[in-house]
């Protein structure tokens, strides 16, 4: 269809050029008419159809009037030019829109159309929707993983770029989780499916991205509204521009020429297409980097971010607790660790887990007679009549033991056997590599204040915030405290909140821009967030803000440019300086330029 249109326009243009060189006037008029009809036919067809359905302000109809008018005034080349360039402009628009649409859907649609399922030693190809949890799939090198699963056979390296933006391949082997949408690079693997197609990462990403596209930016809505009024207003101006001078005794032809020029400029296409296209391209460009931005309104808010609030654990720090210090009193390090592990054996707290992991050996839980969790302090267990305590300073105070003072960053677990102090273990969370850079860059992007929220105690929280150069820090918070703090902060400016989505869904919703970190967050958090970072680097927020600022700049630039050119051409046309050719430029040329400008965002 596209090729046909191009050929049609080319033939029409060639005939028109021929006509320009023929001096015998009747033949040249006939040639002009032929080329006009060839080029303008689809426009006439649409115009007539739309007029019959009662739509007189249709752009095709206005083009028809303008070009026919030019013909009646014996300005044949101009008449043909109006429809010719209108046709070229339309082709270009369609091409640009299709191209970016294809590019964006390709980036977001990560699930393959098939899955190779293994049943009793045989491999059959089925649709991913038909695969059940627990089925075993065979994935060959070069294929995308159709569903989320766990590797049960083989090892390979996978490319998770389209999910996380992470460029280097990740190696996986038996027992490792693989997410749908990642590409198998080197070896054949079998995976056991853990999530149904609809729940799998790839479908969830597509779902979130498409559902969110409806959140339109203010500028997008403005353009839609504006377009409704622009055309009628310009058409009325055109009529007035012709009628008033004629009533005042001015020459009929001179003013109708100027009025026709208005009709050519009356299409708001440049804006109607380029503005939504810019937002669409931004969503696509971001997803290429592993950032899912939900719609134009999120882009708009991101670009205005003034205050950036971070949850500490899992966002600025890795949320993986590791033992950084073991400081025994009168026992060996191994003994201290063993006592700690026994004390924590029934606890699922991340700190307990890291102690147990560090101890490494299997614990005989049958020796434990009694275990008790002391809220906000720690745990106590009874083994063969002995009591082991593990917890913070408050717990030690409670049982009458003076613990060593805290000096370093991290969480202190003091251990006591009956009334004897055994020493302490320091567990600390590791600050993410790019956290400091992220905080620094935010300042350069016009963020006036950075805030860190954490449930941790003051000392460890302070260490992290000082190291990263964060302006304001709130520590020892319970989950609902975070919401109260956000409520207060939000009054001071556009607030971005980044968290890993565990326990902070309400905060993500309340903030002007909620950023959920990583794909590990809950579904509710991913839905509540405006931006989902598929990897867990906080510096991705910088990329997102930069991209949104660029998008808003391009959108504003397009709006100002398109309107300015149109208004200037109309003014110059009304006073007789600009001719039909400038009007054609103000219509088609401006559209093409604005669209090309929007497409820049994809790159």
């Amino acid at each position, binding site marked *: 269809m596209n090729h046909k249109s191009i050929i049609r326009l080319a033939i029409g243009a060639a005939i028109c050029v021929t006509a320009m060189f023929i001096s015998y006037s009747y033949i040249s008029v006939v040639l002009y008419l032929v080329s006009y009809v060839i080029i303008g036919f689809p426009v006439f067809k649409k115009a007539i*159809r739309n007029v019959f*359905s009662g739509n007189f302000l249709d752009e095709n109809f206005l083009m028809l009037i303008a070009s026919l008018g030019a013909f009646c005034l014996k300005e044949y080349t101009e008449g043909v030019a109006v429809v010719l360039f209108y046709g070229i402009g339309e082709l270009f628009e*369609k091409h640009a*829109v299709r191209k970016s*649409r294809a590019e*964006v*859907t390709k980036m977001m649609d990560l699930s393959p159309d098939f899955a190779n399922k293994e049943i009793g030693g045989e491999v059959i190809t089925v649709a991913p929707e038909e695969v059940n949890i627990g089925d075993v799939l065979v994935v060959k090198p070069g294929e995308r993983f159709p569903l989320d699963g766990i590797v049960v056979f083989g090892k390979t390296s996978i490319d998770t770029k389209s999910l996380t933006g992470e460029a280097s391949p990740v190696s996986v082997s038996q027992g490792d989780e693989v997410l749908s949408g990642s590409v198998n690079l080197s070896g054949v693997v079998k995976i056991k499916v853990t999530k149904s197609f609809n729940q799998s990462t790839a479908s969830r990403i597509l779902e979130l991205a*498409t559902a969110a*596209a*409806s959140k339109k930016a203010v500028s997008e809505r403005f353009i*839609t509204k504006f*377009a409704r009024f622009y055309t009628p207003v310009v058409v009325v101006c055109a009529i007035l521009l012709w009628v008033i001078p004629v009533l005042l005794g001015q020459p009929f032809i001179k003013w109708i020429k100027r009025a026709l020029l208005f009709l050519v400029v009356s299409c*708001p*296409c440049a804006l*109607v*297409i380029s503005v*939504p*296209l810019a937002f*669409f391209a931004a969503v696509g460009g971001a997803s290429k980097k592993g950032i899912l931005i939900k719609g134009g309104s999120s882009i708009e808010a991101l670009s205005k971010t003034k205050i950036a609030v971070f949850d500490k654990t899992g966002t600025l720090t890795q949320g993986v607790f590791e033992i950084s210090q073991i400081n025994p009193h009168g026992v060996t390090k191994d003994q201290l660790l063993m006592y700690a592990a026994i004390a924590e054996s029934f606890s699922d707290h991340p700190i307990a887990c890291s102690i147990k992991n560090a101890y490494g050996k299997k614990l005989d839980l049958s020796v434990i007679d009694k275990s008790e969790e002391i809220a906000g302090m720690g745990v106590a267990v009874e083994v063969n009549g002995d009591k082991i305590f593990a917890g913070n300073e408050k717990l030690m105070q409670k049982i009458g033991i003076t613990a060593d003072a805290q000096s370093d960053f991290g969480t202190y677990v003091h251990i006591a056997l009956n009334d004897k102090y055994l020493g302490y273990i320091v567990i600390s969370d590791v600050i993410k590599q790019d956290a400091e850079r992220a905080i620094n860059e935010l300042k350069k992007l016009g963020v006036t204040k950075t805030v860190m929220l954490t449930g941790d105690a003051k000392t460890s929280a302070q260490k992290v915030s000082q190291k990263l150069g964060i302006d304001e820090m709130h520590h020892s918070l319970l989950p609902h405290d975070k919401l109260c703090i956000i409520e207060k902060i939000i009054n001071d400016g556009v607030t971005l909140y980044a968290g890993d989505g565990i326990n902070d869904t309400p905060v993500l919703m309340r903030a002007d821009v909620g950023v959920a970190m990583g794909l590990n967050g809950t579904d509710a958090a991913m839905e509540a967030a405006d931006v989902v970072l598929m990897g867990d680097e906080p510096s991705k927020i910088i990329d997102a803000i930069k991209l949104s600022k660029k998008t808003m700049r391009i959108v504003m630039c397009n709006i100002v440019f398109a309107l300015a050119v149109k208004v200037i051409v109309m003014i110059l046309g009304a006073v007789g300086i600009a001719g039909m050719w400038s009007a054609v430029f103000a219509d088609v040329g401006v559209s093409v330029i604005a669209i090309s400008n929007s497409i820049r965002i994809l790159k």
Partner: protein
Amino acid sequence: MIKRFKVYNLECAHCAAKMEREIKKMSSINDAEVNFMLQSIVVDFKDENIDAEIGKIQKICKKIEPDCVVRA
């Protein structure tokens, strides 16, 4: 009931806006959204029985852009 339709041959951006305006005027729906970029229409129907309504939506779209096809 929220349902998503695919639109084919939706080539002009403000036709999409027009379609959205017209579909929103239907009394049998709560909300509607025509997405030009994703070539889709999402409609929130008041009732479960929507067969007749789908026909109406198709008609609206056809009237605005005769080449376009709406499919569930």
